[in-house]
């Protein structure tokens, strides 16, 4: 089907391509006509090759041009959304479109511009780099930050296209459009959420790593960890994937070899640590321990008792009433996530599986976290376009999967609205919905693993491995026998 689709799209563009390559086409046609009476297989090879080269290079150019147009259109959509937010938020009361974090960024930028610490703004829990990038919010216009985040969105699409074009050139544009026109990415960046910056940094790290520029990938990884702490979960798989594209006979051998420190791996680790120090130390110098507390340490000890998507939210709330959170509780909430992160890192540590592995890691991190808000979804959604060509699902199956993921969210949002804005006691219902959403997340992840590179089919076949091997040998035997029989008969 892939080939048919490719051919269809090519045929659609043929008139355009033929017009561009008319000279080469005419030369080839003239050659054919000239040698019509005595046409041999390679008599017009030079002209044909020239014509073919012209067609393919122009097809690439055309592809790029389509992508540029879609990027412009996507940016235009984002600008419209930013204008809408300006109009909608004009009213002081009611629910605002602009994210509260955007106001926090702007206030922090204001403090920074006045020469004081951005952490003077309560609840600013990011690197001062973001506040610095948003200083034009005060100097130029309040929408500057939203435009900047939208620009990062477009940069993400460019990286997605580059990454996909390596394995699936025919799908590179489609995958980039999956991000450009994704409602989640549009809403997140135009509401003024800075996650598009961290997604961009995470993807550019991946691009550098896949291209085997390990020093560069270590630097980008350090910057992305500095901006948002969550990409630290990718460190293990990046380390394991360096120079480990071979197959191993046993699991223990694979673990040992992948963990074994090679020169490249040591260089990667050292560069990462040094880069992290270089990008973090200046801010520590200016803003001291408060910077480390607010930007990093807060996230590790965060216990949000207010309602959120996490399965742990109601438990956290009830426990907070007793003023005691034991060490056992901390282990019980962190250990399952840790086990899963390590398992997935080892399972998909090959460079070819890196995008899917990062998707799984982000998904596990979000689904098993003690706090979960909708802005976290963008962490794994940014990897979906990269995994799309490898996940063998039909359109109906994709819709089913999306429904499994979305329906519990709708239920949760309904009860959350009743609690937050109507004052109904829906704590227990919300908890049940968060359990449902957790189960949906587990199901979605397992289905995705099953369908990644036809794993389900492979599994079915490997269950019947013995029978498969026997059948395979029988077929091979029959073929050999028939071949020898034919050879004998020819004599």
């Amino acid at each position, binding site marked *: *089907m*892939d080939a048919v*689709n490719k051919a269809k799209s090519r045929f659609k563009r043929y008139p355009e391509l033929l017009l561009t390559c008319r000279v080469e086409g005419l030369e080839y046609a003239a050659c054919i006509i000239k040698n019509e009476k005595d046409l041999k297989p390679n008599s017009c090879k030079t002209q044909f090759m020239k014509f073919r080269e012209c067609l393919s290079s122009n097809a690439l150019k055309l592809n790029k041009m389509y992508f540029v147009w879609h990027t412009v259109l996507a940016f235009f959509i984002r600008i419209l959304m930013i204008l809408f937010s300006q109009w909608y938020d004009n009213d*002081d*009361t009611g629910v605002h479109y602009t994210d509260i974090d955007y106001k*926090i960024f702007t*206030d922090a930028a204001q403090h920074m511009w006045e020469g004081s610490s951005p952490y003077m703004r*309560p*609840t600013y829990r990011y690197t001062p780099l973001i506040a610095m990038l948003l200083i034009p919010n005060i100097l130029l216009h309040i929408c500057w930050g939203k435009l900047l985040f939208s620009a990062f969105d477009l940069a993400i699409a460019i990286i997605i296209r580059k990454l996909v074009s390596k394995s699936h050139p025919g*799908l590179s544009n489609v995958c980039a459009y999956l991000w450009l026109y994704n409602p989640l990415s549009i809403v997140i960046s135009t509401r003024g959420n800075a996650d598009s910056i961290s997604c961009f940094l995470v993807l550019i790290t991946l691009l550098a790593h896949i291209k085997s520029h390990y020093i560069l990938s270590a630097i980008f990884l350090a910057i992305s960890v500095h901006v948002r702490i969550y990409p630290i979960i990718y460190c293990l798989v990046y380390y394991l994937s360096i120079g480990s594209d071979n*197959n191993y006979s046993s699991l223990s051998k694979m673990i040992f070899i992948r963990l074994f420190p090679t020169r490249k791996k040591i260089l990667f680790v050292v560069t990462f640590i040094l880069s992290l120090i270089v990008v973090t130390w200046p801010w520590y110098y200016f803003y001291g321990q408060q910077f480390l507390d607010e930007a990093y340490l807060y996230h590790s000890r965060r216990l*949000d*008792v*207010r309602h959120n998507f996490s*399965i742990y939210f*109601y*438990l956290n*709330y*009830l*426990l*907070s*009433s007793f003023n005691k959170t034991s060490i056992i509780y901390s282990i019980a*909430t962190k250990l*399952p996530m840790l*086990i899963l992160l390590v*398992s*997935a890192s080892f399972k998909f540590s*090959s460079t070819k599986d890196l995008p899917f592995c990062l998707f799984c890691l982000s998904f*596990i991190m979000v*689904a*098993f976290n003690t706090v979960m808000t909708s802005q976290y979804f963008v962490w794994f959604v940014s990897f979906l376009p990269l995994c799309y*060509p490898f996940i*063998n699902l039909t*359109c109906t199956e994709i819709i089913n999967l999306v429904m499994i993921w979305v329906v519990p969210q709708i239920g949760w949002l309904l009860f959350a609205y009743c*609690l*937050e*804005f*109507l*004052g*109904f*006691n*829906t*704590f*227990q219902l919300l*908890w049940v919905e968060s*359990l449902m959403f*957790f*189960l949906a997340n*587990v199901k979605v*992840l*397992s289905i995705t*693993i*099953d369908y990644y*590179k*036809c*794993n389900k*089919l*492979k*599994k079915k*076949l490997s269950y019947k491995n013995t029978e498969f091997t026997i059948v395979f040998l029988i077929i091979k035997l029959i073929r050999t026998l028939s071949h020898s029989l034919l050879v004998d008969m020819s004599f």
Partner: protein
Amino acid sequence: MGLSMKTKIILFALYSLIFVTSVVSYYGFKGSQDSMHYLTIHSGNINLQVKNEGYHRVLHTTVTADYETSNRKDCAVTLRYDFPADIYVDKYELATIALNRKVEFYVDNKFIDVETPAHKSDPFVLYVVNYTLPDTANKLIETEFPIHLRYQKAAEDSRYKEVRFGDAYSDVQMLYLCKGPRISNWKQFPLNSGEWIPASYVKVNKDVVMYVPVGDTHNLPLVSLITHGLVLLGTYYIIRRLLTTPSPENPIIKLSPVKC
């Protein structure tokens, strides 16, 4: 013909007298100008009303009074709210509102934690300063601003916690100061300067009652068991998938996905 020394002395004394009386009368007039700016309140009430439901409310305050004033622009009226720990205001949200309206908000605490639950928070005082009295007769002040309710401690015996505000005299107080039009730099009369006159006879008419949903502590064992149980189940399910899934680079079965 020159004036005699005696005449000169008399004239000097007369001019001096005129100068001194002029200066004294000028400053005397200046000094008496303050008494020209006044606000006399005979009786009054503070009416509180809460709009919306849930955690995010709007507190609407109206002060109705029988009063006399020199000019509507001569006096500033401040409402002092002593909020309990159950309620908080977002200073930055109020700053945005102050930009669009003729009011100023001051909070005595430098830092209001908007994330902590009620039992881990502190009460605070909010001052709302109005520099112009409304044109409506008998209405001394009318203002509204958003307030937020904090999460409450889970309880054993009830599903809602009652948050009452305005029942004590000290919850809302009115103060005023008359110094002429706003142009005469109000900043030199800070709220804690002691120059503001408390209108102690203007009292809250009726308190407001809000209900905050609370969790049930009886649920804790069950919630703990089911939550951890499901997490373990989910972990096991995903690990099983990961372990049983063949390696993506299987040398025997090489399959590549087909896109339709």
